[in-house]
Every structure is written in C-alpha cells, then in structure tokens.
C-alpha cells in the first residue's frame, strides 16, 4: 500500500511541477496557498537526508548513503487552515560540496541546521554553519536547530541544556529529534513553517522580495478533491 501511496505522491509532485512551470497552459488551480523553500544543512552523517525522508515518507531510511550534491523533497502541510507546499533542498554534508552548495541557501525561508547529539564535533561546527546561513540568507529566514539521533541516549555527547543555551543565545528555534523513531521530526518542520507564516502575518517577511523564499498562490478547491480521492482509496483498502 505504501508503494501505491508513494506512486500517487510522485504523480502529484509531477503534476504540481508542470502546473508551476506552465501556469498558463492549464486551467488546474494550485492545491496550496503558499510555497516555502527550506534548506537542510549540517555536517556529514548527522542524518539530514534521514530527517527529510522521515518527514516526506514517514519511514526511516536505514543504511542511508552520503548525499551527492543536493537532494530534493516536497510535502504539503497545513498551517492555520492554509495549505503550504514545502520545497526542501537537502544539501550534502561532505566538505567538498560545501562551497558549491552555498548557492542553495539563497532565497530560503527556513533553514534546518542539524547536528548529531552523539558526535560533539558536529555540534562544534555549528557556529560555522550558522555563519554561512546568516551570510547567505535574509534576516527573516527562520533557522531551526535540530539535535538528531535523540534515540541514542547512551552514546550522547551533547546535553540538551548546552544546545538549548546555544540556540537561545543565537535566536534559533531548537528541538532534539530522532529520524529513526520519528520523534519531533514533524514538529521541527511544522514549527519552522508556523514561524515563517507568523512572520508573513506580522509583516516581517516581504512576499514581493525576490529572495524571501515564499511564494503566494491563489487557491481553488478542485485539486484538493483529487487529494482526498487518493486518500480515500487508501482508507478503503483492507491491507
């Protein structure tokens, strides 16, 4: 069943893509009100791609190979009754990609900065990731710090308190999460979106700025019915 769901999701992505690229060639309206661009950054092996996979597929990807360059994922979420499409760019953590993946920071509305709670070195490098983020994004970009692998308590090298203090000092949102169990993964992605949405509502984020990382789309209901049909198929299935 998950395979069917994955195929349906892929079809949706494909359709959305063509609608975005050729809005005048189709009468189909968008099934979301906003697009938010996210980036995921952090050292190699901290679990960036696993967090993304857990968020988009609700599954843990064991034996995840190192990302080559950059990966991409999407999911439509809901904040305050508004449908928001998250476009997530997941960057490679390997040093050799560091300089070239900087171009993906531009125009990000949200930056998820990830370290591994069981490897202190990945935490120690956060200030360098933060410097890049501050330099390459705009002041309204929401930066969310994620301490991943919270399920590995016995090998923890960074305490919650220490990281929380770092986050507070630098004005970052913060959660410890586990891409393996799924704990707090949803929350991290959703809270980032809520904060971005709040910034829009309060006028802190200019939608017309080219690098705000947010696009506003007029919404009409017909595509939503396609989504609910797809969900309906799943619900009726006895498997």
């Amino acid at each position: 069943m998950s395979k069917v769901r994955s195929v349906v999701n892929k079809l949706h992505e494909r359709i959305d893509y063509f609608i975005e690229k050729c809005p005048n060639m189709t009468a189909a309206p968008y099934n979301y009100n906003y697009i938010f661009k996210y980036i995921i950054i952090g050292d190699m092996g901290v679990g960036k791609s696993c967090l993304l996979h857990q968020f988009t597929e609700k599954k843990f990807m064991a034996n995840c190979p190192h990302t080559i360059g950059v990966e991409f994922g999407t999911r439509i979420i809901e904040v305050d009754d508004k449908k928001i499409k998250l476009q997530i760019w997941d960057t490679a953590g390997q040093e050799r990609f560091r300089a070239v993946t900087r171009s993906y920071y531009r125009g990000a509305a949200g930056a998820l900065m990830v370290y591994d709670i069981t490897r202190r070195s990945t935490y120690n490098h956060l200030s360098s990731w933060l410097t890049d983020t501050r330099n390459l994004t705009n002041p309204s970009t929401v930066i969310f710090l994620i301490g991943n692998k919270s399920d590995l308590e016995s090998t923890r090298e960074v305490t919650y308190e220490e990281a929380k203090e770092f986050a507070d000092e630098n004005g970052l949102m913060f959660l410890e999460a586990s891409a393996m169990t799924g704990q707090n993964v949803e929350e991290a992605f959703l809270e980032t979106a809520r904060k971005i949405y709040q910034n829009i509502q309060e006028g802190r984020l200019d939608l017309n700025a080219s690098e705000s990382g947010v696009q506003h789309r007029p919404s009409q209901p017909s595509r939503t019915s396609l989504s609910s049909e797809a969900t309906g198929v799943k619900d009726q299935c006895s498997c």
Partner: protein
Amino acid sequence: MDELLSDVVPQEDLERFEKKYHHELELDGEIATETKFEYAFCLVRSRYTNDIRKGILLLEELARTHPEGRRDYIYYLAFGNARIKEYTSGLKYCTAFLDIESNDQVRSLQAHSPANLDRPRYPAAPLYGSLALPLSCAVPSSLHEVSAALWSAERSLD
C-alpha cells in the same frame, strides 16, 4: 527529480568558480581537483548546453584521475547527460553506479529518463578511450569494483 534537473546555477556562482579555475590555470598551469570539481558542478547545472558539455568533459577527466571522488563524478555525469537529454549515456552511468551501490538518488535519475529511447543522432564519444587506471595494491577492493564497473560502462558505450 524535475526540480533538480530544472534548477539552474546562479550566474554569479558559475562565474566565481570559472574565475577560480582560470586563475589557477594561469598561475601555475595546474588546477586543483577541488577547483575542477566545483567548476564542473556549476557547469552541468547551467542553462546552456555548451556549458553542460564542458562540465561533462571535466567530470570525465576527474573520473579518470581522481578515483576517490568517482562516486560523485559518475552521478553528475548521469545528471549532466540527463539535462541535455543524452539519456542513453546518462542511463549507462546510472547503471554503472547502481552496479556498485544501491542509491535512491541515482534510481530517481534513472527512473526519470524515458524508458524506450531512440539512440541519439550522433554516437556518444568514447568516454574512456585513453583510460588506463593505475591500480596499485594500496587501492581498496571497492575501488577495484568501481573501476571494473567503469570499464564495463565504457565498453558498452563504445
């Protein structure tokens, strides 16, 4: 995959890495692997076919001369070829990669290419024509496997 393939490198980035590449070339006639790779990474993401072809040539050279990074080069060779719709070559790189490592990134690139392809109007250049891989005893066995897969990819491309 559509988003990745249609994403275009910012012009200023392409120019920055191009400048670095030429600067090193002029300075000591030699270019660091890192610089070559960064420039190639930008070129294959350019909107212009000629840039992408140039990036592919650089990546082929890197794949010959720098085995440690071959995994990245093969992926971006497949990626660059897919961007200029040279699917036959692109798919061969995907196959060569997947023979060695199971990888979702490569699989989605493979799945993106049309399944039934007419052969391109002109044949793909023999990519590893002059390739002679120095396989010293110090090279770990997995690299031998990579090389073997590359050799077979080359044979099927010829």
